C-alpha cells in the first residue's frame, strides 16, 4: 500500500518556525512532524511512502532516511512548489499500485495526524493551540519510549531532570534530556521540547520551549514560543531576536551567516591593532580627561543571508574611539576583525533605526553582506549613510563581493587616504598637475 506525504513549503505567517529547518522537521512533542505522519501511515498499513519536499529536501531526507525505522520504504522527492493533494495524486498515483484509501493516500502535512480541525501553520496561535490539543495523544503513540505521566496532565520524558523544588502544573510536557532548575514553575500549558534547559526560578506558562533552547534564570515566558534566541509571542503575533544569551539562547552552535574571515586576516588585524596603538592612546587619554568613556559602544544589526527571517533584536555591539578624528575612530573595530565579527572589507554597520529606514529590497541588500572596517562607500568618499549613492554602493558590494573587489576597495581607500580624493575622481587631481606645461609649450 502506498501513500504520499506533502511537506509544507514556506509559510509566511509562521516564518520563525522554519528558520533553522523545514516545517516538516519541526520538533513536535519530541518527534519531527514528518515522523509523526510516517508512524501514522505505517499504522494505517502503508508500505511505501513518497515524500514530496519543496523546502530543504536534503534535511527532510536526513531525518526520514529510508523509512526502515517505521517498517516502510520512504523516499523523498524534491518538488519546485508545494503540490495540493489533488495535484500529487494526479502526478504520482499510478493505477497499477495499491494506494491507501482517500484522504490518507495524499496528505499535506499542515496539521497533526487525526487532528485536521487544528491547523498548524495558519498563525503562531494556531500552532500553539494544535500542540496543546494533541498533547495527550502524543504520549500514547506506540513508538513512544520512556515518557511517563508523573501526575494527571504532566508528562515527563526519558532522562529528564526536574529539580525537587520545581513546580509542574498540568497540563505540561517535559521532553527527553530536559533540565528544570530549582524554583522553576512549568505550566500550565507548557511544552519543553527535548534537550532544553530551564534555569532556576524561570516561569513558563502557555508557552513552547523549542528543542536545544536555554531559558535563563528568573525569566518569564508567557504566551510565547521560544526557538533558540528567537522569541515569538503567539498572542501578539510578534517576534524578536533576544540578543542576550543569559536570557534566551540556542544550545546548538550558531551557523555563521557568512564564511568567517581567514585566519591570516585576523592575525594581520591583531598586528595592525598593536602597531596603531600609539595613535589611539592620545584620543583615549583625552576622552578620560573629559570624563567620557574611551570606547563608545555602538549597536549594529547583524548581517544575515537574504533567505533568513529579518526580525528586530539580532544585533551585535562594536566600539568607536571617542573623539578621534576620521578613520582613527574605527580603531577598536580592528579587534572586531580579530573576533570575527567584522571583515576587513564589507558594508559598514547600521544601527536598528538606520536599518529600519532601508526602504526596499535593493537597499536591504546592505544587510546581506558581512560587516567591514572599510566599505566601497568609504573608498568612494561617500560617508553619509543615507545618501542614495551610499546605499547603492552597499547593495552593489553585497551582490558582487569577491576577493578582487575587496583588494580594489583597499587600494582605493589607501588612495583616498593619501590624496584626499576618491579614485573615481582622480582626474580632478591629476589634471591640474599636468595641464600647465602643455599650455606653456602651446603658447610658445
Amino acid at each position, binding site marked *: 500500500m502506498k501513500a504520499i506525504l506533502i511537506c509544507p513549503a514556506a509559510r509566511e505567517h509562521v516564518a520563525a518556525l522554519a528558520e533553522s529547518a523545514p516545517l516538516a522537521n519541526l520538533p513536535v512533542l519530541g518527534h519531527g512532524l514528518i515522523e509523526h505522519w510516517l508512524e501514522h501511515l505505517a499504522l494505517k498499513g502503508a508500505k511505501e511512502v513518497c515524500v514530496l519536499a519543496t523546502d530543504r529536501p536534503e534535511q527532510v531526507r536526513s531525518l526520514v532516511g529510508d523509512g526502515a525505522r517505521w517498517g516502510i520504504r520512504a523516499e523523498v522527492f524534491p518538488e519546485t512548489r508545494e503540490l495540493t493533494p489533488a495535484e500529487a495524486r494526479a502526478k504520482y498515483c499510478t493505477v497499477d499500485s495499491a494506494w491507501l484509501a482517500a484522504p490518507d493516500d495524499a496528505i499535506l502535512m499542515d496539521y497533526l495526524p487525526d487532528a485536521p480541525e487544528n491547523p498548524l501553520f495558519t498563525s503562531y496561535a494556531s500552532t500553539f493551540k494544535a500542540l496543546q490539543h494533541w498533547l495527550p495523544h502524543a504520549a500514547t503513540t506506540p513508538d513512544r519510549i520512556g515518557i511517563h505521566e508523573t501526575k494527571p496532565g504532566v508528562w515527563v520524558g526519558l532522562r529528564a531532570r526536574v529539580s525537587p523544588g520545581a513546580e509542574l502544573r498540568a497540563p505540561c510536557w517535559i521532553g527527553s534530556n530536559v533540565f528544570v532548575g530549582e524554583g522553576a514553575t512549568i505550566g500550565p500549558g507548557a511544552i519543553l521540547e527535548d534537550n532544553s534547559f530551564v534555569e532556576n526560578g524561570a516561569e513558563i506558562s502557555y508557552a513552547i520551549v523549542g528543542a536545544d533552547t536555554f531559558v535563563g534564570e528568573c525569566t518569564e515566558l508567557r504566551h510565547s514560543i521560544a526557538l533558540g534566541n528567537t522569541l515569538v509571542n503567539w498572542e501578539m503575533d*510578534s517576534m524578536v531576536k533576544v540578543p542576550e544569551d543569559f536570557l*534566551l539562547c540556542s544550545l546548538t552552535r550558531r551557523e555563521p551567516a557568512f564564511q568567517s574571515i581567514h585566519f591570516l586576516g585576523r592575525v594581520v588585524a591583531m598586528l595592525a591593532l598593536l602597531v596603531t596603538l600609539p595613535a589611539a592612546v592620545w584620543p583615549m587619554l583625552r576622552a578620560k580627561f573629559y570624563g567620557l568613556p574611551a570606547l563608545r559602544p555602538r549597536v549594529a544589526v547583524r548581517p544575515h543571508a537574504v533567505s533568513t527571517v529579518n526580525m528586530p533584536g539580532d544585533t551585535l555591539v562594536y566600539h568607536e574611539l571617542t573623539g578621534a578624528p576620521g578613520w582613527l575612530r574605527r580603531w577598536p573595530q580592528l579587534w572586531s576583525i580579530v573576533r570575527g565579527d567584522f571583515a576587513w572589507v564589507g558594508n559598514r554597520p547600521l544601527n536598528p533605526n538606520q536599518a529600519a529606514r532601508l526602504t526596499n529590497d535593493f537597499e536591504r541588500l546592505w544587510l546581506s553582506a558581512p560587516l567591514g572596517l572599510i566599505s566601497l562607500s568609504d573608498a568612494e568618499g561617500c560617508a553619509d549613510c543615507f545618501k542614495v549613492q551610499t546605499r547603492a554602493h552597499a547593495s552593489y558590494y553585497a551582490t558582487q563581493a569577491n576577493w578582487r573587489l575587496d583588494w580594489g576597495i583597499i587600494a582605493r581607500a589607501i588612495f583616498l587616504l593619501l590624496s584626499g580624493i576618491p579614485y573615481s575622481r582622480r582626474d580632478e587631481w591629476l589634471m591640474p598637475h599636468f595641464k600647465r606645461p602643455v599650455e606653456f609649450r602651446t603658447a610658445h
Partner: protein
Amino acid sequence: MSVQDLQELSAANARSFPGEICTSELAGLKHVEIDLSKIHFVDGYGLGALAALYVALNKPDGSSPVVIRLLHPQPPVQQVLELARMHHIFEIIPRNGVLTEGWPHPDVANGTPESK
C-alpha cells in the same frame, strides 16, 4: 515627568540614560513616564539602564516610591521586557492603553484613575 523622543535604548546610550533623567528636579516626583514608541528593540544594556533608573529613583527603604511607566512599547520591545520580568517593577502601558495586569491606564479610562 515625561521622557519623550527616545530613539534607542541600547549599548549606545545606556550609560548616559539614567544620568540624563536624574539631572532633572526629582523632589516630590511621583511618576516618570518614558515613551518607548520609537524604540525598535532593547538589549541587555537597555534593560540595565532601566533597572539603574529604577534604583536611582527609588530608595532602598521604600519611602517615596516613584512609579515608572513605560509607554507604548513596540511588541518586540514588550516581549523582551516581559521576558526579563521588567513588568513587575515598571508599569507597561501597551499600545491599546491597557496595563499588562489588566488595569486600564488612567488617561485612557473614563473615570477615576485606578490604583494597584
